């Protein structure tokens, strides 16, 4: 009630506050911006780190990366050395047993991580560059350039993906870099389309018009103004791309055309389970590999989803 305010210090309370005095009171309106401004990346990171599953997944992924980097140091045995009994169940310091010719399964799994990481990250790096460039160019310039790039994209997309990979890999030899390159060179169309689609809408946005009106050159507009705005979808796409590449490499190895043999990959380790005896009687030789692929892919997928949510949450607001 009005009376409750009391008359004691009525003067103190009921005097007009001028503009200068107003500033001495905390300005709530400006609060959102008076504290440290968050960069885009920081905001996304903040959101991302609120997602527990994604954070755990990121941890797993980093762990796998470290394992890949320090494979040699971490492995109890040399990668290809025939050090143990043949096809033995776990014993001594062969924690996951040995394979058909007495190599330590654990050490090979650890080295297999390298393959997956190289193929996953490498192929994605390749296709992101190709896909992004073509998508940007195609979307921004339109017209004949766009039609041509889109036809090529369609053609590449219409190729039976797996068959082409199989053929190219048997053609070029199944080195880890070949697999990486082939996956990279064949996987760009989806991203190119995605980027193109984004560019098509972005280039009609006023901030791009503003950039044109400001006098930026075309590459300046493409790379300084448009590209930063498609980074997020590219990032999400790339994350899922890593997962896909790891799976594809594993499938190729499983079919016997993956990474060259003495070099272990999760897929070629797992492919040994095609032998019924290994499948039924020597689970240590294939179950860990399968679980590793699964965990790697799952965690990357969760990271991707976490990113997607963080980014989309961002754009919605």
């Amino acid at each position, binding site marked *: 009630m009005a009376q409750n305010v009391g008359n004691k210090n009525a003067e103190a309370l009921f005097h007009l506050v001028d503009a200068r005095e107003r500033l001495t009171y905390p300005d709530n309106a400006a609060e*959102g*911006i*008076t504290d440290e*401004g*968050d*960069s*885009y990346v920081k905001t996304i990171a903040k959101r991302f780190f609120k997602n527990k599953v994604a954070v755990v997944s990121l941890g797993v992924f980093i762990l796998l990366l470290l394992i890949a980097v320090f494979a040699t140091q971490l492995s109890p045995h040399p990668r290809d050395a025939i050090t143990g009994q043949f096809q033995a169940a776990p014993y001594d310091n062969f924690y996951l047993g040995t394979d058909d010719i007495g190599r330590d399964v654990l050490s090979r799994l650890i080295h297999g991580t390298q393959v997956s990481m190289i193929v996953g990250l490498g192929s994605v790096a390749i296709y992101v560059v190709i896909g992004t460039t073509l998508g940007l160019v195609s979307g921004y310039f339109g017209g004949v350039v766009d039609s041509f790039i889109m036809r090529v994209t369609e053609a590449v997309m219409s190729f039976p993906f797996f068959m082409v990979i199989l053929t190219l890999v048997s053609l070029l030899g199944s080195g880890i870099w070949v697999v990486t390159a082939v996956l990279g060179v064949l996987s760009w169309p989806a991203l190119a389309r995605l980027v193109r689609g984004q560019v098509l809408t972005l280039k009609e*946005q*006023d*901030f791009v*018009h*503003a*950039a*044109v*009106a*400001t*006098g*930026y*050159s075309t590459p*300046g507009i493409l790379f*300084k*103004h448009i590209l*930063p*705005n498609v*980074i997020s979808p590219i990032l999400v796409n790339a994350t899922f791309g890593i997962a896909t590449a790891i799976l594809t490499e594993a499938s190729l190895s499983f079919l016997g055309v993956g990474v060259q043999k003495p070099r272990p990959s999760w897929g070629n380790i797992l492919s040994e389970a095609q032998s019924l005896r290994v499948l039924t009687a020597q689970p240590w030789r294939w179950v860990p590999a399968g679980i590793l692929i699964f965990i790697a892919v799952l965690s990357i997928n969760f990271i991707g989803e976490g990113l997607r949510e963080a980014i989309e949450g961002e754009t919605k*607001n």
Partner: protein
Amino acid sequence: MAAEPKEKKPIVEIRSYKQYFNEGKKSEVRAVKDVSFSIYEGETFGLVGESGSGKSTTGRALIKLGDITGGQIFYKGEDISQIKRRKDLLKFRKSMQMIFQDPYASLNPRLTVKEIIGGALKVHGLETDSNKRTEKVYELLESVGLNKQFANRYPREFSGGQCQRVGIARALAVQPDFIIADEAISALDVSIQAQVVNLLKELKEQNNLTYLFIAHDLSMVKYISDRIGVMNNGRVLEVSNAGELYEAPLHPYTESLLSAIPTPDPESERHRVRTEYDPAYHHYDNLDRVALHEIAPEHFIYCHEDEIPLYRKKREKLLKKARQYA
């Protein structure tokens, strides 16, 4: 209102400008059919009209955001379609700037305010030293009433009004002579609109700018403009001094437009009479003698030659009436 036009020197001349989209296809849109008007140096020219009448399209053509279908546009006496070389283009871009409708959409969400404003400086080589450039950005921010702390922030951290100020600062950065404000205040809250309009007016005086002010809101347009053009369906139907336009709206479309604006005054709203505009009323069979004709000094109407005397008479009547009430 701006000072009386002393010596009127057109900075922009638009002659029979046409813009068709998707020409020849089924989806062809004749966004602009025939637009002619001039803007004088130092004035604010308001452009109003219903949604889709071609206002933005005209503004974009003026700042060379695409090729035009027909007609000619002169800026400072030069046909802008002839500006091709990068050097000339940069000069043109430095001289003309634009403020957009949606304060958020017109700022790149991935760039900081410093990058946005500084970028404009950099492109035109106005401030090559990066420290000096930052100083300059601070200055610009201050001039539009923003704290320099804002420089390292991203647009989405700002309110609409603040964003629009950033947009204005960007436009001002290159020290243009001419600014197109395409619905620069439509997306803002009433309480913020006034802030921005005041700012625009202030800056105009300080920097001796010329504005093309495109808007829906006729009360704001009247408030800010010296002269006003009314567009409908891809054509400019009436061009006049701001005051005269409101006192003596001659074209029936202008009339209907003015009568449709609700005023924040319940009493007058209770007595408002709306006039509707029926485009069929002007169905000219032959466009030969139909054009923008000068009915009175500085007052143009898109009409048939034969209609000129009628409009003149109407003008007299309306002006007389207005004076009575004044």
